[in-house]
């Protein structure tokens, strides 16, 4: 009797301790959009460059997005952001040809949606040479390394 009891308890201690790896599949799953941005390695001002985004969902290229837009602004001039409508190059790939007038640090924010899955990734782009203030800005904007977050409840 005692032995059975012991084995049962040890079994409980050892078994059932960890979560199955694919356990999330048992619950509601989202189908997030995924964006990959393709840029030339070097971008110069007053030169036309292609900016493309590859949109995938569940590992497959998105056939037809509901909407896609490129919002662009220069680092020190966020107020004058422009919105451009990219063209579909091929399945899941959308792009524009863009000419930047001046050197500097730019941002492109891609707004895309498909069946209620919405994304807004933001890309940092360097055109020509960076000014001193832009360099300083980059260096001050160190992403925080965080620790010690206690969870809810």
């Amino acid at each position, binding site marked *: 009797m*005692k032995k059975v009891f012991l084995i049962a308890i040890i079994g409980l201690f050892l078994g059932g301790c960890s979560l199955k790896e694919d356990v999330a599949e048992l*619950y509601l799953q989202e189908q997030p959009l995924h964006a990959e941005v393709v840029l030339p390695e070097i971008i110069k001002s007053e030169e036309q460059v292609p900016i493309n985004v590859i949109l995938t969902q569940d590992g497959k290229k998105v056939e037809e997005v509901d909407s896609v837009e490129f919002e662009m602004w220069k680092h020190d001039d966020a107020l004058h952001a422009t919105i451009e409508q990219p063209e579909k190059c091929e399945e899941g790939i959308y792009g524009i040809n863009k000419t930047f007038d001046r050197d500097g640090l730019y941002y492109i924010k891609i707004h895309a949606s498909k069946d209620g899955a919405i994304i807004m990734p933001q*890309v940092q782009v*360097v055109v020509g040479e960076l000014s001193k203030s832009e360099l300083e800005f980059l260096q001050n904007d160190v992403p925080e390394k965080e620790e010690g977050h206690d969870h809810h409840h």
Partner: protein
Amino acid sequence: MNGKLGDGIENDIVQEGDIYVDTVINTTTKSDAQQKSALYRAVWRWHFYAGIIVAPFLIILAVTGSIYLFKPQIEQVLYQDLFEVMPQGEKIPASQQIEEVKKLYPDAVITKYRPGENATRSSEVSLTVNDQSLTVFIDPYTGKSIGKLKSDDRVMDKIEEFHGELMIGTIGDRIVELAACWTIVLMVTGIYLWIPRKKLIMSGVLYMRWNKGRSILARDLHVVPAFWITAGMLFLVMTGLPWSGFWGTQFQTIATNSGAGYPPSVWVGNAPVSTVTKEIAEVPWAAETLDVPVSEVQGFIPLSIDDVVQIANREGVHPSYTVFLPKEPTGVYTLSAFPPKAEDEITMHIDQFSGAVLTDYRFDHYGFIGQVVALGITLHKGTQFGLINQLASLLICLGIILVAVSGFYLWLKRKPKKSMGAPKSTSIKNMKLFLVVLIGLGILFPLVGLSLIVIILMDVLLIKRIPFLKRFLHV
């Protein structure tokens, strides 16, 4: 013997010995009666020792629980100056509020942001600085700090810590869990002792006998309220256990694995990860020149907190949510709200680079067990039905205190100077059914099982071999 119910206890209180056997029931055969009384005594003996050990913890749990029940009201009074703001115009973006906090604490790491659930509620920015965590309260209309609160100074958190782990961490958590599990043993044995042995008379069973003398009054003050609060007490134990460290974690893991529990990351399990990691923009570190290739500086940068707030509004997240900021490049923004009503709960993970909603777990998406547990928790905390809920739970807590104290008093009354005054132990043969129940509980609640093993070992190795202990414990 006055022919009333539950006489076994009464008599043994008044006079020690085996009176019960002599006076019991002439209609059954002697050996039958003897066996029954032996079982009765065995159950009573377990109830006696378990009660003495568990009672102090039950009192602690009931007292701290009674206070914690009223956390919303108490904090509203304590922190009114920090919580309330005068609405005026538009709220300032979250990013600017956080900037303000960064100015106040340049070395701090920001961990959480809570926008505030309505127009008159301040927003909160939590941070850690010098290994201390604190919350800065911001007036969202002016963007200025209106005060701070160190996590160590939150009184209600202390009460919760006392309630959940006696303020001594994991060991305390296990002790509380053990006490809670043994409370179930107390309830099972208590009900057995409570069941009327003779005719169906309700006095001393369902209602009190106020004028039959002090002994009877003391006995009734234990037995009658205990019966009335048993259901509530069982409810509090069963709804509290799922968040205990040992049994609770095991239970939650099994439930989540089965698909019927909480989805992963709500209670057990990790959050998903942000997927973009290769294409993240790197930060140059040397001054004057760009010391890393341009292609490294080009890439995704994390979403701003303002975008996260916008996503929360778009997705209809309950306004009492808190944003947990990502700690590392693969981390996610976690939006989490556990408001008073379980139906409003949400845990949402957002990719910190793309802003994609990676998971959106609300009450409706929990499995059946998860929903039951979630409801159990809000009922246990007294928030689900507001004041009525709080008062009902308070009544159960007060009942628990009364039963623990009266039980203790019953013991003091019968305790001789030189021993514990426990009912005499009986041979294991007389308590087969009871043993099965105990072992069953021991398997269902491994900590009970573990403590049973310890008790058996102590009995065999120590108590049976030391005459003083044998006498003292009435073995």
